Each structure stands twice: as C-alpha cells, then as structure tokens.
C-alpha cells in the first residue's frame, strides 16, 4: 500500500479547532485532499458515498464514538480495508488494546506533533 499524497483523507473530530489543526498539519505534509466530519455517524455517511484513502479519527465523540466508527468500518466489506488512525486523548492501555483488537492501523496520543503524525501515516503505508 503506497502513500499517495493526492488521496482523500477524512479527519473525524468534534472539536473544530482540532480538525483545523490536523487539516493544516496534513497540508504541511503535502496532503491536498482533506475532508472532515464531526462524529462517527457523519463520517460513516461520508465514507459510504466517497472512498477515502485514510481516516484519522478522534475517539470521544457523540453520538457515535471513533471506536464505534472503527468497528463499523471494519465490519463493512466495502470499507473494511480503509487505513484508520486513532488520534485521541484516551491514553489508557485498555484503550490502545481495544482499538488494536478492533483493527486500528495506528494510534496517536494527544497532544501530538507534526512529526508523530507524519511518522504514523508513513508507518501505516509501509513507507
């Protein structure tokens, strides 16, 4: 799976500021096509109408959390292979294990920096 900077990336977070920050960091990393959603429900709707090359999602959102979104994505044959990175302040071991079991490709603990985001995206795409 190669890293294509022109692929559509979906950022899912209920904090508009965080969406803006991740959007800007992705732009700095060279990603041109970035979309966003405010929670898991909106993200799932968008994912069913457009194919995304990468999902970067927060965990703690309502009504659908990022964890629930991950499970729904992995349970949907059409979406199951979408690379999924969790970016969250939930930093307990059980969270990481639960996300890993649910099929997350990588996990970033907030607060994070641009280098960490870049490194995890590259790791997911085997760069």
């Amino acid at each position, binding site marked *: 799976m190669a890293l294509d900077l022109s692929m559509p990336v979906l950022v899912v977070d209920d904090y508009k*500021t965080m969406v803006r920050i991740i959007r800007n960091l992705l732009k700095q990393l060279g990603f041109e096509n970035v979309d966003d959603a405010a929670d898991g429900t909106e993200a799932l709707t968008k994912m069913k109408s457009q194919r995304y090359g990468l999902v970067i999602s927060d*965990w703690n959102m309502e009504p659908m959390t990022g964890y629930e979104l991950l499970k729904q994505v992995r349970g949907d044959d059409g979406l199951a292979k979408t690379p999924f990175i969790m970016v969250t302040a939930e930093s307990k071991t*059980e969270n*990481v294990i*639960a996300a890993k079991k649910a099929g997350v490709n*990588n996990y970033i*603990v*907030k607060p994070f920096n641009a280098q*960490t985001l870049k490194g995890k995206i590259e*790791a997911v795409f085997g760069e």
Partner: protein
Amino acid sequence: MDASKLNLDVIKDFLRDQCDDEVNLSTIIRLAELTTNSVAELVKSHDVETHSELLNIARQIAETKLDISAFRADEMHEEHIPQAGRELDAVVDATEHATNAIMEAAETIMAADDGDQDTYKSTVNEQVVRIFEACSFQDITGQRIAKVVATLTMIDTRITSILDRISAIETVEPESAGAETNAEDGLLNGPALRGEGVNQNDVDQYFP
C-alpha cells in the same frame, strides 16, 4: 417488652456504643430513627393516628439514610473533588505551555533573517507547524473542563436528591439507580493527567 412504656434500652445501648466516637450526621440520624421507633411503640397502644404518623417519620428517616449513603461523601472528598482540582491544575499548565510555545514561535519568526529567502521560508514554515501543534491544547483542556463539570453535576444531583427527600417535596432516585451503562463507558476517561496513562512510546509497542 411492655408497649405501654417508652423503650429506652435500645437508645441507651446505642449512645453507650457511640460515646467514644465522633458525632456525625449518620449518628444523629440513627439516634432519631431509634427514638422514633421507640416512641412509636409507646404511642401505638394509645393513639393509632399518631402511631401512623410516627411510622411515616421513621420511614422518611430510613429513606434519608439511603440517600446519604448514596451520596458517598467519602468518595467525593477523597476522589472526585481532588481529581477535579488536578484537572484544573492541568488546564492551567497546558494553557501556559501553549502560550509559551506560540510566543517562542512568533519570536523566532520575528528574529529570522530574511536575507536568504529559502532559509527564511523554511524557518517560517517550521514555526507555523509549532503554532498548529501548540493550538491542540484547546481540545485537551476542553475535555478536562468537561470532566470537572461532570463532577459538579454529579454533586448537584446527589445533593438535590437528599434535599428533595428531606423536604418531602418529591422523591428523586439516586443518580446511580437504574442508570443505563454503556459497554464503552470504561474506555471513555478523557485525557490522562501527567504521570498517568500511557505515552506515545508505550502505544508504539502495540504497532511495531
């Protein structure tokens, strides 16, 4: 026991047991409960209406005891309130850290030599990224403040329940009774405090 006489033995025994302990609200309520029950036995043989009223008072005292136990004051004092204080301290630290990071980035840009355009552009880009990173404090502090608000709401709910019971205006069930639990609730804790939770290096062990 002779129902026509006030039964003081049980009250005397209770007071004897309590004599070395600190008198607290639970002790007073227990004493009121024992006294009410004892008087109720005495009155039963003389006045049915008063006896019924005393039983009603005894029932309300018992219900207030349940509310006070549901309030879990020790848990509040030893866990929730100190935790809320630590969350607010962490908010202060995070905002201070973010402010310093943004100021340093701005100062670095102001001090940069614009003689070499390539170097200057690279410096500005690098510092702009630092500013984006620093702005993430808003998300973290928002979550911490939400946890403090949740603690205040819980205290408010429990106190309101006790006050409602005491004033007999209406009956409010303790917050925990019948509350639906979500299988994911144990995983939703918000940001960890410094020294708690795992850091990025720990997380990376799971994604070799």
